[in-house]
């Protein structure tokens, strides 16, 4: 990037100078850059110094050269000089003057281009960390990780602790090999804040790999890893600031970690989050490393390439160790292949690159569309200066010279737009970028710094140049075509210049897009409303919800072995005790547990009814509408419906006995009765999960439906239609995930969070409570993301609308100025003003009409297709009411387009016949 950057800059120097000194200057620049390396903000410093150096010296040389040329004492080749001054300062000055003279065009065109550049830069900044992650560590290029790849399943096997010991002791090409995992210990800080602490257990070498010095105290050392050593912890800067109030005496304070207590021995500097996104570090104990092959908890490794080693040499050494292990213990290692790779994951697969290219394809497409429109405006403006160009041609200006001039106007506009786009991109990245990515991906790794890099600035410049080329060169070429022929005609004002097919297509597409956008906004708003209004069926605002994580790792091949079963039972008992104790707290109306929270994505399953088989056997005719057989399943605590205050409409609720193994009962909601049973009596129905097709396993057992409740937010708000809720009773050890819901009688339920944490700690310090939320806000992230999309679409709609109006205005005012003489003649001959207006605006009006018709057609097609998609709220397609609405809307759009013609029409009608005729 650096070399390309400087090579581009070199073009600021006169050509001869560049040819003579360019190579040496590149080498000198590389040396200068090398000297700046390692200093703070090195890349920025280098870029700024190089820009200043080039701007002052390159510019001065050009000025001197021009002066020498003008004085006739040039030592340079005159023809070369003429070419290098093809686009000179005068062009840029003239362009800037034009921008001031036509502020409307500057604002509309500039903002539209700025928007397109903004989209490009923000996309680039968001995508780059995925494709070319760069670690902000001093030894970044040497930091690596080692993974065990199971070639039999083509998956990573993260139970590497046994192998890690071998790698650490025998690898020569990789040093400081360490291991880490997300700590399963519950870190509790006594400050009443219920937020989760992101803790890692990590080898002490991690701090050496990251070359990290502490702000206070010390980092972890090898001695801390000994099994008998007392627990110590190092905390992150943000954690120290927010949770310890920047206490300078924090060293020596104790923090509870699960059932143990750790002493804080260090505070890291701001920004340190190695290995991924952590803020609390505990030593990775040596005894945990001693595991049998391919067993134990999941963990990850890191290390540093020894000096003089490369990934290839390290892989060769690692491969030899892997082959030896496979030969010695084929039972576990036959298909395991250790692989070394750069520390930060890079996306380089064909699929990812495909996605990248398609993103950029759309960015460039958007830019071209927008700039095509800006080009239309520039064309209309330049056309008004046609006589100007004719005169210059007569004086000997070449076509290229004129094209350059119009291009310069677009370039200045593009430059301004790039500046505005960059400023807003910076604002967007700082304020919303991280939130947006975290909303989608969770906590971001420390190397995901969303900011404007020099590369992003280059992208903006490139986009501005592409945009200027589309917006400037296209109209310039059209305008200057056949200038010499036109010169031969005596009249300039009535010249043969007209809007051609390309411009017509652009205007039609533009209007169609403008017409099609608002319904998209309308539809997105519908989605947003759908998510916001998704009825949980109970007073969710009064409930506090929290997720409970398990202390033991779930990934370590959790089967039905006695140890796991025992741990599960203990976990269930602890939760039952917690539930009981929380329920006894003052102000608490009830506490329950469930596998999923209402209105969040409950798991879906296909079911079978016993009555289906009976009907099939009898050969009864199938019902007209096929009944639903996919339901939203949730395992819930027997107290669930009581605590949510959901009345049982028929049958009975769950009892404690129902949660015992072997009690196969279920409760369904009204949606189930209406859609699955189609109104039949649900009580006593036999239901079971359907087997996968071609499955050899035994048929799952039947469950008996014992009760019916109202709809309680089953399914997901992003699913289409009403879900069928199917609840089975169960104890927490059988849940995929465990959520607790607390009904708080008065006030904000969030205020109960810290008390809940205290109670949990008293019951079992190993219980980890995370993600405290009000139960009515569990979809807040989804709402904010849809909201963000809505805003982006709104901006796009605005841009499209303004551009369209400006385009129509440009075309109609162009038509009037082209035909001033004709209007004058017609009026002089007694034509009615109405007929004149119709004659002039026939073409722009036809374009508008065509555009609106095309846009409406697009909307109608999509509306008709909507019921076949999976989007929520898309059950109804093209109704009469909707069609009428769209037609009405199209009429309004036509009206708005006509508004853009008002000024040119007035101008046309004001043409004085005598004045028009005198123009000859």
């Amino acid at each position, binding site marked *: 990037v650096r070399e390309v950057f400087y090579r581009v800059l070199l073009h600021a*120097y006169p050509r001869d*100078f560049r040819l*003579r*000194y360019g*190579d*040496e*200057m*590149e*080498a*000198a*620049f590389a*040396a*200068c850059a090398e*000297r700046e390396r390692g200093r703070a903000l090195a890349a920025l410093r280098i870029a700024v*110094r*190089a820009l200043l*150096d*080039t701007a*002052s*010296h*390159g510019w*001065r*040389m050009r000025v001197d050269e021009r002066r020498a040329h003008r004085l006739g004492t040039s*030592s340079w080749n005159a023809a070369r000089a003429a070419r290098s001054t093809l686009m000179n300062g005068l062009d840029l000055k003239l362009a800037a003057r034009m921008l001031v003279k036509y502020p409307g065009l500057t604002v509309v065109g500039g903002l539209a281009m700025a928007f397109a550049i903004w989209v490009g830069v923000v996309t680039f900044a968001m995508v780059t960390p995925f494709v070319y992650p760069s670690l902000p560590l001093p030894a970044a290029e040497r930091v690596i990780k080692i993974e065990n790849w199971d070639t039999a399943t083509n998956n990573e096997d993260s139970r590497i602790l046994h192998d890690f010991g071998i790698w650490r002791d025998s690898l020569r090409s990789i040093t400081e090999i360490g291991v880490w995992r997300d700590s399963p210990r519950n870190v509790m800080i006594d400050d009443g804040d219920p937020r989760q602490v992101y803790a890692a257990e990590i080898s002490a070498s991690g701090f050496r790999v990251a070359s990290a010095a502490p702000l206070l105290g010390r980092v972890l050392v090898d001695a801390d890893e000994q099994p008998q050593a007392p627990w110590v912890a190092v905390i992150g800067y943000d954690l120290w600031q927010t949770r310890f109030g920047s206490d300078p005496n924090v060293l020596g304070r104790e923090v509870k970690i699960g059932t143990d207590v750790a002493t804080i021995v260090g505070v890291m500097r701001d920004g340190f989050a190695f290995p991924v996104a952590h803020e609390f570090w505990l030593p990775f104990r040596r005894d945990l490393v001693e595991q049998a092959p391919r067993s134990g908890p999941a963990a990850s490794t890191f290390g540093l390439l020894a000096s003089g080693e490369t990934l290839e040499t390290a892989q060769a050494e690692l491969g030899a160790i892997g082959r030896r292990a496979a030969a010695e213990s084929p039972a576990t290692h036959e298909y395991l292949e250790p692989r070394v790779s750069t520390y930060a994951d890079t996306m380089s697969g064909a699929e990812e690159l495909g996605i990248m290219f398609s993103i950029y394809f759309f960015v460039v497409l958007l830019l071209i569309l927008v700039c095509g429109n800006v080009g239309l405006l520039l064309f209309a403006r330049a056309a008004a200066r046609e006589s100007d160009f004719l005169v210059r041609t007569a004086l000997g200006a070449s076509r290229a010279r004129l094209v350059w001039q119009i291009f310069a106007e677009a370039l200045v506009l593009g430059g301004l737009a790039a500046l505005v786009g960059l400023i807003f991109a910076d604002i967007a990245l700082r304020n919303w970028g991280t939130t947006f990515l975290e909303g989608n991906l969770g906590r971001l790794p420390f190397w995901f710094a969303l900011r404007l890099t020099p590369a992003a600035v280059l992208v903006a410049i490139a986009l501005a140049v592409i945009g200027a080329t589309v917006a400037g060169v296209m109209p310039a070429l059209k305008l200057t075509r056949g200038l010499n022929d036109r010169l031969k005609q005596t009249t300039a004002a009535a010249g043969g210049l007209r809007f051609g097919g390309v411009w017509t297509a652009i205007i039609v597409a533009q209007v169609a897009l403008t017409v099609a956008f608002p319904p998209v906004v309308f539809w997105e708003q519908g989605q947003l409303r759908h998510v916001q209004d998704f009825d949980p069926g109970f007073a969710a605002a009064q409930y506090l919800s929290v997720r409970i994580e398990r202390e033991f790792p779930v990934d370590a091949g959790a089967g039905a072995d006695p140890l796991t079963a025992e741990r599960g039972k203990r976990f269930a008992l602890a939760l039952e005790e917690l539930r009981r104790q929380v329920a006894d707290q003052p102000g608490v109306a009830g506490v329950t547990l469930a596998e999923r929270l209402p209105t969040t994505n409950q798991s879906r399953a296909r079911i079978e009814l016993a009555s289906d088989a009976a009907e099939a056997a009898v050969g009864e005719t199938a019902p007209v509408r096929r009944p639903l057989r996919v339901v939203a399943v949730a395992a819930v605590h027997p107290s669930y419906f009581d605590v949510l205050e959901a009345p049982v409409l028929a049958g009975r609720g769950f009892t404690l006995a129902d949660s015992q193994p072997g009690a196969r009962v279920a409760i369904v909601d009204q949606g189930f009765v209406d859609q699955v049973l189609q109104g039949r009596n649900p009580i006593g129905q036999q239901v079971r999960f359907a087997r996968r097709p071609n499955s050899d396993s035994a048929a799952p057992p039947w469950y008996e439906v014992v009760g019916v409740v109202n709809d309680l937010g089953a399914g997901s708000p992003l699913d289409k239609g009403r879900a069928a809720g199917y609840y089975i009773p169960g104890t927490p050890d059988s849940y995929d995930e465990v959520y607790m819901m607390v009904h708080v009688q008065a006030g904000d339920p969030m205020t109960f969070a810290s008390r809940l944490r205290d109670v949990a700690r008293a019951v079992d310090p190993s219980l980890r409570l995370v993600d405290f939320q009000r139960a009515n806000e569990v979809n807040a992230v989804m709402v904010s993301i849809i909201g963000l999309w809505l805003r982006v679409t709104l901006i796009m709609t605005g841009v499209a609308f303004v551009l369209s109006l400006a385009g129509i205005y440009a075309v109609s005012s162009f038509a009037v100025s082209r035909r001033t003489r004709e209007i004058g003649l017609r009026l002089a001959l007694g034509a009615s003003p109405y007929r004149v207006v119709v004659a002039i605006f026939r073409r722009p009006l036809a374009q508008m009409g065509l555009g609106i018709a095309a846009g409406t057609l697009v909307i109608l097609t999509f509306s008709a297709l909507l019921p076949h998609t999976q989007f929520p709220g898309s059950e109804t397609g093209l109704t009469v009411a909707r069609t009428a609405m769209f037609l009405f809307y199209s009429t309004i759009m036509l009206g708005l387009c006509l508004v853009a013609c008002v000024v040119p029409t007035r101008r046309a009608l004001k043409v004085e016949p005598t004045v028009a005729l005198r123009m000859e």
Partner: protein
Amino acid sequence: MKDSLPDHWFQILLSLAGQDLHGLAITAEVLERTEGRVHLWPGMLYGALKQMTTRGYVAETAAPPDAAPAGGKPRFYRLTPLGRRVCSAEAARLARSVEVARARRLLKGSRGA
């Protein structure tokens, strides 16, 4: 022409007073001698070299046989007699200013301190 030489011109001439050098070596010599105070960026260096060549202060020359290899085929420069006179005139001008400063006790210590 102004009566004083631009500082970076003077520094370049000074570095060529000892031996013939190429561009990169001039930058390194100046940087070292001025303890990092004068950093010649490429535009500044080669712009100055070109102008000084035009004025006859320096001239391109063949690489000395004992020159350290520096990648590619860099141009070497040597000080012309005119360049030497210009450089010493500038040095004398600066020396006069230093004398005045010393007489007015603006400089601490003796020569070379």
